[in-house]
């Protein structure tokens, strides 16, 4: 298959961008090699969505410069997310510019590293080099991964040393308020042995439209017995072509809880894969989606079992309205040798309009005998019996539908550990459902 391989950036442009950031040689070389590979590698192939005509390549500007703001001057939408007085560990990025960074003295003293990604490349090269696109996502797995590695222009790095338990959530806000901006954010979380962390991020557009790319790759490495809770609410503007890849690699007895509210207004390919590599590791994955307008989206959630006694739970609830087209792929894969593992999933899609298209594809791939696995999937309308029941108490049809939808999406809302983020997600859902 011949594909137009002209990329928006050349190898020399990549080099000079790297130089302008004072990046170490290994990273400059990695970028340059990646841009070469990006030209040759095939595109990823999201199941049941044809992305041949999607433009994941072109953008008006690779980086935009945004003004900094003091914490008191944050836009209202951002303020609502944050409990300013309470939140000690916070990173806010405005488009491509690191704008606010706070890390408590206590965590610093314990050796926790929390900084914007490009600073981490300069200052924590050993850790970054070890884990950046080597373990969870590989920089040469397809064109968009290579393109990302070459063009990464933001993101965050979080390292939690051995035995460190962080009680309060670490909060990150990626604010998009410049139509010209492209986001090649890389999030790298390394949770060392026996550590524990809760990380919550928001992607938030405050402009109506975008002209650039959102190519986001986020990696979680959880070493033996580490526990990571990862919450995210994405609300990116229409106009982006969004590729978001959140992936975790878990060692022995490690545990991850994902709570993802995927509320982009853009066309989106979302991939969330957890590799349960170590024996006894487990993943609990909750995803909710509301698709509106003429959006085309594909959401793949996969838990892949390599370790014995590993447990994976996938819950996906999607609401599809207007003329939106949405594919939900849920994959539980048990590799040979992962005996006594348990792969469970539930995908439910609620269709609110006759023109909307929604598909739930539950897939179980099992290469081992001694395992448990199960799935439930449904695509349908709001249950008329439920509506009748609620209306028989005096609640109007519209209000009953609203309550049912919020209830349907509650699994993620309730799992988000920051009150402001929870409220914002509820508000976003409300806005999308009412519209």
């Amino acid at each position: 298959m011949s594909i137009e391989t002209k990329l928006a950036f050349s190898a020399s442009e990549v080099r000079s961008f790297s130089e302008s950031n004072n990046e170490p040689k290994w990273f400059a070389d990695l970028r340059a090699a990646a841009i070469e590979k990006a030209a040759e590698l095939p595109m990823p192939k999201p199941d049941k969505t044809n992305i041949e005509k999607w433009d994941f390549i072109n953008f008006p500007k690779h980086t935009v410069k945004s003004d900094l703001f003091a914490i008191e001057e944050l836009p209202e939408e951002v303020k609502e997310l944050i409990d300013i007085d309470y939140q000690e560990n916070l990173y806010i990025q405005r488009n491509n510019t690191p704008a606010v960074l706070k890390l408590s003295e206590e965590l610093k003293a314990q050796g926790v590293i929390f900084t914007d990604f490009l600073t981490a490349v300069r200052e924590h090269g050993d850790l970054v080099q070890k884990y950046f696109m080597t373990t969870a996502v590989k920089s040469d797995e397809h064109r968009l991964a290579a393109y990302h590695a070459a063009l990464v222009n933001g993101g965050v790095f979080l390292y939690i040393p051995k035995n460190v338990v962080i009680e309060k959530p670490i909060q990150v806000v990626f604010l998009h308020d410049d139509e010209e901006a492209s986001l090649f954010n890389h999030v790298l979380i390394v949770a060392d042995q026996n550590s524990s962390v809760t990380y919550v991020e928001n992607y938030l557009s405050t402009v109506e439209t975008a002209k650039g790319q959102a190519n986001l790759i986020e990696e979680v490495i959880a070493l033996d017995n580490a526990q990571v809770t990862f919450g995210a609410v994405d609300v990116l503007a229409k106009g982006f072509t969004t590729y978001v890849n959140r992936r975790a690699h878990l060692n022995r007895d490690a545990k991850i809880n994902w709570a993802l509210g995927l509320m982009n207004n853009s066309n989106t390919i979302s991939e969330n894969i957890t590799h349960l590599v170590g024996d006894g590791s487990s993943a609990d994955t909750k995803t909710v989606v509301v698709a509106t307008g003429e959006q085309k989206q594909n959401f793949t959630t996969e838990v892949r079992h390599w370790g014995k006694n590993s447990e994976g739970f996938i819950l996906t609830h999607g609401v599809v309205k207007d003329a939106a087209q949405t594919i939900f792929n849920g994959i539980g894969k048990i590799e040979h040798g992962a005996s006594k593992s348990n792969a469970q999933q539930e995908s439910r899609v609620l269709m609110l309009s006759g023109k909307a298209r929604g598909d739930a594809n539950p897939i179980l791939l099992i290469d081992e005998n001694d395992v448990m696995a199960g799935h439930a999937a449904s695509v349908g309308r709001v249950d008329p019996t439920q509506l009748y029941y609620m209306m028989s108490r005096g609640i109007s049809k519209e209000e009953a539908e609203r309550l049912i939808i919020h209830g349907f999406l509650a699994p993620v809302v309730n799992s988000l550990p920051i009150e402001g983020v929870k409220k914002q997600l509820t508000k976003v859902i409300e806005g999308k459902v009412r519209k």
Partner: protein
Amino acid sequence: MSTLVIKDLHVAIEGKEILKGVNLTINTNEVHAIMGPNGTGKSTLAAAIMGHPKYEVIQGTIEIDGQNVLEMEVDERAKAGLFLAMQYPSEISGVTNADFIRSAINARRGEGNEISIMQFIRELDKTMEFLEMDSEMAQRYLNEGFSGGEKKRNEILQMMMLKPTFAILDEIDSGLDIDALKVVAKGVNAMRGENFGCLLITHYQRLLNYITPDYVHVMMQGRVVKSGGPELAKKLEAEGYEWIKKELGIENTDAVIEKEEV
């Protein structure tokens, strides 16, 4: 005083006529019981009054104080004062019992006149205690994972919180043990008074030991075929329905004309 008047009601489901001319008048301060063998249209009557979308009224009228109930949407019927404790309440995931009941109260009160959260919580706590319900049930999702008995109690809780003018209890006693039955009866008896009328639908006289009806009606073949006082229920308990069939010349084979519908 309010009055619920049902006149010559004919109701079909999926084209099949189940109710064939029901006449019934219920005033506030009255408790009526409808008894009858399985499949004679009792639950159909309840569903038709509340406006279940599957039930088609083909003839007759239902009015509350002269207002035409049949022209109302389901929620409007509730706002007009009707309440149906359902035989099989729906489970709604993600919506807590407390939020649901508060939404229902506020829907009746209207915008700008919402119940204060404090007042709501006080009333809910008090009512749940009265019904011997565990207070954690307020925060559980609506009917989700509730046992049969818990669901029935929860219907009575909603009735007491919403204070309808007319409550229809559709086989509220089925599947209840004696203790739960007493609690349900306690709830209904607490509502009795000048502002409350009740229609109990039941197979069993047992419930009527705890809620003494003012009137008892027997339904067969889609009609009310006999009415009387509480003594009628006792006679039915002792002698069954055969004597009525004989008295009215009803053929046994016709008795079952309807599967119990949800």
